[in-house]
């Protein structure tokens, strides 16, 4: 019995070796994964690397794409922005990957942008960002400000009756741009400048006493006040702890956050956060068959039934499926042809809707507002009517109001509808 088992194992092993030999001999389609696996961003990005690997694994079990197996090329840009550009050119020039899934922070995206444009590669970017960009070589599967920040503010204004606003952010490009858009939006909606307070704190700020006391004071003027938080990851825990300690509850001054999701909540004691709001395009708690299957698949793949799923994971899932569909439709993995095929491609998202690639290289996404529950999950309290089309250039900033991105008819990421000039990709 024992001997036979050993024999079986050995033959299986042998078969495995032969099989992998055959597979290696066959041409594979290479997929680049450009997420930090070390450094400060590893905490968020490692999950997305695993998501891409899971999707590749599942696709290969279905027979791959165009009859070929997919092969992941994983590199580690180590949360180091210049290294992102270096690794991106390695992926595109040396490994000749057909597509890259990667980046989290805006600065990493900005640093790889010239590389992708020079080598005419294709990048799927899965994280909500500040907008004001549309590259020919990037598909933005995360939310633009009009798919997250603006609906969240609308919700607070209309459903909660907020009259006074604190825009609290970490001092870098995403909060600054988002807050600029939100401030313009609020002013356009008739909010008085005296009712808006904008503040920035350094990265990883851990002493929130003064800020929270100031928020408390700002919120005690007799008008309903809310905080719109673009505070970056690590600074959130001490911020919410301080809110809890100074007895500011979500009923008095709600805080709506754009970068606190299930994964972040799993690393902290969620009790002081109960009732605080987050705006995303996906929540793990949304009950659809697709989402349930995705969560099960994730738990099986990562071998840990306690791991959460989150919004950027869904964006990665959508991006991957969009790419597979576009490649299948185009009949080739040549990035240039796939880029031309992508606009108009549709794929179901995990919350029962459809994600469609728009001519501006953004996608349609539903918007959800959730309240934090004690178990670190979200209770959806508001949902947009249908999907919202991502807008690359904000309509509320004076500089970008007239700018349009259209890679189908205009073939331009930055077209000024007044002067009728396409001024290249970077808005000047």
């Amino acid at each position: 019995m024992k001997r036979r088992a050993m024999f079986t194992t050995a033959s299986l092993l042998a078969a495995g070796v032969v099989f992998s030999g055959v597979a290696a001999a066959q041409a594979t389609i290479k997929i680049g994964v450009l997420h930090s696996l070390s450094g400060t961003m590893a905490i968020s990005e490692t999950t997305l690397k695993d998501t891409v690997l899971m999707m590749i694994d599942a696709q290969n079990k279905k027979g791959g794409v165009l009859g070929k197996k997919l092969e992941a090329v994983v590199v580690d840009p180590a949360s180091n922005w210049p290294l992102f550009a270096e690794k991106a050119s390695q992926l595109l020039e040396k490994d000749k990957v057909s597509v890259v899934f990667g980046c989290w922070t805006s600065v990493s995206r900005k640093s790889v942008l010239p590389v992708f444009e020079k080598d005419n590669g294709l990048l799927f970017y899965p994280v909500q960002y500040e907008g004001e960009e549309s590259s020919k070589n990037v598909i933005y599967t995360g939310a633009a400000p009009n798919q997250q920040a603006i609906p969240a503010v609308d919700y607070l204004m209309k459903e909660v009756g907020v009259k006074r606003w604190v825009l609290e952010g970490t001092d870098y490009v995403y909060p600054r741009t988002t807050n600029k858009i939100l401030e313009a939006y609020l002013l356009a909606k008739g909010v008085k400048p005296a009712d808006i307070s904008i503040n920035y704190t350094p990265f990883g700020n851990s002493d929130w006493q003064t800020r929270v006391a100031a928020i408390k004071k700002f919120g005690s003027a007799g008008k309903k006040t809310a905080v719109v938080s673009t505070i970056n990851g690590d600074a959130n825990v001490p911020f919410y702890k301080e809110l809890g300690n100074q007895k500011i509850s979500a009923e008095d001054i709600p805080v709506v956050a754009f970068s606190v999701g299930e994964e972040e909540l799993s690393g902290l004691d969620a009790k002081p956060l109960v009732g605080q709001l987050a705006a995303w395009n996906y929540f793990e708690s949304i009950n659809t068959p697709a989402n349930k299957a995705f969560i099960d698949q994730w738990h099986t793949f990562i071998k840990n039934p306690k791991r959460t799923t989150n919004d950027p994971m869904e964006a990665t899932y959508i991006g991957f499926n969009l790419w597979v569909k576009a490649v299948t439709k185009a009949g080739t993995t040549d990035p240039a042809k796939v880029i031309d095929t992508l606009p108009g491609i549709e794929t179901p998202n995990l919350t029962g809707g459809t994600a469609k690639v728009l001519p501006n290289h953004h996608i349609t996404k539903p918007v959800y507002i959730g309240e934090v529950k004690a178990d670190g999950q979200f209770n959806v309290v508001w949902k947009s009517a249908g999907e919202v089309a991502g807008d690359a250039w904000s309509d509320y900033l004076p500089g970008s109001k007239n700018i349009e991105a259209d890679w189908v008819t205009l073939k331009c990421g930055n077209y000024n509808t007044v002067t009728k000039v396409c001024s290249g990709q970077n808005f000047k």
Partner: protein
Amino acid sequence: MRRFSMGGQWPLVLLLAVASVTRIYAQSPKDAAFLSVLGELREASYSDKASIAERLSQTGHSSVRVVLTALLEDRLYYRNSDQKVFVVKTADADPLALIDPLSLKAAGSAPADGMTKIGTNNSLRHTLKMTVAHFSLGSADAAVRLDAVHEMSLSLDEETVALLRKRLAVETNSGVRKEISIALALSTLDGSDSRARLQAVATLSDSVSQDVRNRLALLLDKSPDGTFVESDAKVRQAAAAAVESIDRWRTFYSDIQTLFFGLSLGSVLVLIAIGLAITFGVMGVINMAHGELMMLGAYTTYVVQTAMPEHIGISILVAIPAAFAVSGLMGVLMERTIIRYLYGRPLETLLATFGVSLLLQQLVRSIFTALNRSVITPDWMSGELKLNDALSITYNRLYIVIFTLIVFSAIVAVFKRTRLGLDIRAVSQNRAMAKAMGIRTEWVDAMTFGLGAGIAGVAGVALSQLTNVGPDLGQSYIIDSFMVVVFGGVGNLWGSLIGGMSMGVTNKLLEPWIGAVLAKIFVLVALILFIQVRPRGLFPPRGRAAEDK
């Protein structure tokens, strides 16, 4: 909110006891009405739930308070099989212990997946709090009553005023009495009797609450037609004076608060620097892994909490010696295996300890993953000590200030009063002479480094209550701790105390004016300039020992 919910459960227990004695047997028409309204909660939207809750309280049923409190605390469920609504003892338990909403008696238990929670959102909780506040006025706990009065004073109508009047007549607690009289005075401001209004303004001028100030300021406003909202000039005058006095007091208290913020930031700086003041200050070792020793302390807290989930309250106290031991042993290990070969070679020490810091970070990543770990704040450390309406001090900061002072005194005592301290001082002043006197200098080196590392671990326990517990924890504090030690004067513990405190206070005094980012930059620039003028810091070492260094 926390205090509120804790208080809410005691009356529930009381009521349960009462209910089990009285025993409501038959289902009266009142019960039927109550049940049918209660049933509507199952499918309703959040906005409808608010009006259903309102109707529920109008039924006047004896269970209203318990049911609404349960709804507020996420403890109201319905059974999927028969759609029957139940109150449960503790939310999110499995199985759930059911309580019948009518009789308030235990009604067995049910598996959690057979029950659906009736959810709430912020605005519904807000309404519920208000409704429950009406019932809470009769609570036995003065703190609950105080919260209830405060809640009610935010939306005063005839009914609440009548309730408050009734309560004032029997209220014995002076704090609650004061809060009620303020609420009543606020309601009087709407009345037509100008003498009563004047009286009310006088009552309110003693308060330092922002809500009261806002209400009084409204009296000074003009209506759109140009007339004053408050017709009586005398009342207006009194109100203006009251607003001014409240503002003055609030500014005064907010200055005190800023000072406390500064001291608490300062004590965190001192706490993270004391260990370094020993290893860098006394021994002259540039230990770049100091931050990681703090991180080990923070992770020790996490491990201790995971090991004793039932006793979170005392886990922090257990974690302090544990973290001291873990980080201290790591320090001794570092000293024996690496640093002792590098004495007198600062550059190599710096590089070697930097390498150790990377090793420790990766070690933690491998064991605990790169994700942050959640360290729970015990109840006794959360919340704030409310001194009055304008001044509150958060407990966690208060304890950390006290803790820093204790740790500091303990270290000073070790240095001044113990044999080890004497040896350390002797070795640091003149190694050769100390050796000649029979002191085992190598042993003293190891112990000193271990002591410094252990204190870093203890600082880590405190940091676990303030910030993220992750592999990068140490890096965000290492610069600050070196700054404090250099500013205070290398080799001087008191220098670190004064240095850290003054840096904290300066930072917090500047923050409201120029923002957190600029305040940090300003402190750094000021420090660089200071070091230019006095390179040896605030309290430079003096005497012969100083010349040798």
